[in-house]
């Protein structure tokens, strides 16, 4: 029934109004464009609405910025931190209005240094151990239980030990960042190396390929999508690890700064001085850093793994 009603109708508009069709295909209507390009505007528009609503609620209900700061205040704190003019602490006076002795950049550079170095070290060790474990079932059977047991420990509980072992300075943070980056790489490397299917292995075996050849020509390239999935997780984890290390034990500034440095340190200081607005600003910075680091890994992955189907790239994550 429905078809009978609809069909002549659609035929009619098609045949009687061909000019409209042509016009439409040349210059689509504004609403069509708006709909097709929704990926471009939907987020910015909703973001503006969200932030405006937030601002309005804080102002309307007169919420103390110690409880929940308005976005405008957060933006101001962020800007202040970024264009900070280094005056140093006023001698003798306790300045509670700002606990900051340095601009955000010195803190960012500390945390970034710890996270990136930890990421590199943790990834290399995770990848390396994954490769070694796959060569021998014996090694895997002996070592793997320790690795899993270690991984199940909450990192927060291990962090103080790392401070004791490696000190308050940058080493303990780097090692913590490395520790959390290590596990995703280890597991994904192992899963990836096992992911070659039986036909592929048979193909190489039928040619009497050596173990090294099989690894080089098949298993390792086959594992790359998994390894990159691990890297994507590890890079975010390493930032968390560095912050965690800074929470537990603040290290002195490197590169000539006075006092203690790192975004985690800054967060702690701000929370002690009830600087919620500043805390929000640092959190925003951190999320941008995480996004940026993740993006770098992702772009590298897309460059190297152009051949891999998208579904395979997300496996193992």
């Amino acid at each position, binding site marked *: 029934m429905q078809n009978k009603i609809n069909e002549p109708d659609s035929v009619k508009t098609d045949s009687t109004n061909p000019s409209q069709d042509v016009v439409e295909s040349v210059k689509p209507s504004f609403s069509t464009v708006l709909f097709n390009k929704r990926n471009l505007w939907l987020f910015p528009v909703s973001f503006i609405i969200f932030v405006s609503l937030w601002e309005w609620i804080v102002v309307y209900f007169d919420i103390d910025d110690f409880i929940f700061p308005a976005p405008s205040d957060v933006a101001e704190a962020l800007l202040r931190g970024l264009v900070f003019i280094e005056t140093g602490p006023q001698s003798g006076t306790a300045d509670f209005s700002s606990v900051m002795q340095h601009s955000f950049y010195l803190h960012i550079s500390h945390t970034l240094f710890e996270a990136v170095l930890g990421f590199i070290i943790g990834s290399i060790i995770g990848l390396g151990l994954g490769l070694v474990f796959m060569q021998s079932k014996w090694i895997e059977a002996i070592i793997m239980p320790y690795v899993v047991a270690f991984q199940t420990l909450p990192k927060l509980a291990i962090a103080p030990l790392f401070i004791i072992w490696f000190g308050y300075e940058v080493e303990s943070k780097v090692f913590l960042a490395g520790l959390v980056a290590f596990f995703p790489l280890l597991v994904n490397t192992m899963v990836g190396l096992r992911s070659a*299917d039986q*036909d*592929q292995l*048979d*193909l*190489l*075996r*039928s*040619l*009497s*390929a050596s173990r090294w*050849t099989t690894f080089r*020509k*098949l298993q390792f*390239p*086959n594992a*790359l999508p998994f390894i990159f999935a691990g890297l994507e997780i590890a890079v975010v984890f390493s930032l968390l690890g560095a912050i965690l290390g800074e929470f537990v034990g603040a290290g002195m500034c490197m590169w000539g700064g006075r006092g203690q440095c790192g975004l985690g340190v800054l967060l702690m200081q701000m929370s002690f001085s009830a600087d919620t607005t500043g805390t929000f600003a640092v959190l925003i910075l951190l999320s941008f850093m995480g996004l940026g680091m993740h993006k770098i890994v992702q772009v590298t992955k897309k460059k190297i793994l*152009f*051949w*891999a*189907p998208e579904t395979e790239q997300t496996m193992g994550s």
Partner: protein
Amino acid sequence: MSYISVKNLEKEYITASGEIVHALSDINLEIFEGEFVSVVGPSGCGKSTLLKILGGLLTKTSGGISLKNTPIEGPRNDVGIVFQDPVLLLWRTVLQNTLLPSEILNLDSNVTIPRAKALIKLVGLDGFEDKYPHELSGGMRQRNAIIRALIHDPSLLLMDEPFGALDAMTREQMNLELQRIWLESKKTVFFITHSIPEAVFLADRVVVMTARPGKIAEVITVDIERPRDLKTMGDPAFVALSQKIRGLLYAESSID
């Protein structure tokens, strides 16, 4: 003098639950050099097992199997294998995938690269040498897999349902192409398929197998002139042979 000789071959598996599965039972088969042998049979009749034993990928339980009078005990370098899945390495181009066996066997690239290019031309993939698998159609990938199995000039080509995943029209196209390649290269081919017309169309002889345990029911000679084309499939001799094979397969499976 037969090229491949299989005598009283038996293969048993022990499953994870400890059960013994009789995959192949009393297989006797002679294959001659340059012959095209198709194998049809229901799932689980052990035809893939037989292929893997021929390729040295599985070991026999008992009986004898030899190639050119040498017992097959493991992988050998003069065998090319084509699977149902093209199994191309995704990070390699058509040319690189074609060259894979020759790289593993350390063959002289001065010889193999021109040979790979000739093979690429033979299957109509010229112009696609530098394309990756994800840029190819299913039929093109399978062509790539076939020429990869030919690059090291093996004397035996083992094909395990190579066209099973292709659509009907591409499949017929590939049958014609495989016949052409075979007529040009005169390799010995052991070809597994589920399709009776495909088996008859390509083969000099069709081995009909039955399941549980995997046995050879009958070996049927296809006495139809080559080259065969799609019209051959309407030929009374072709139809009669197909019917006969169908009869053999159904007679056995109806006992189940």
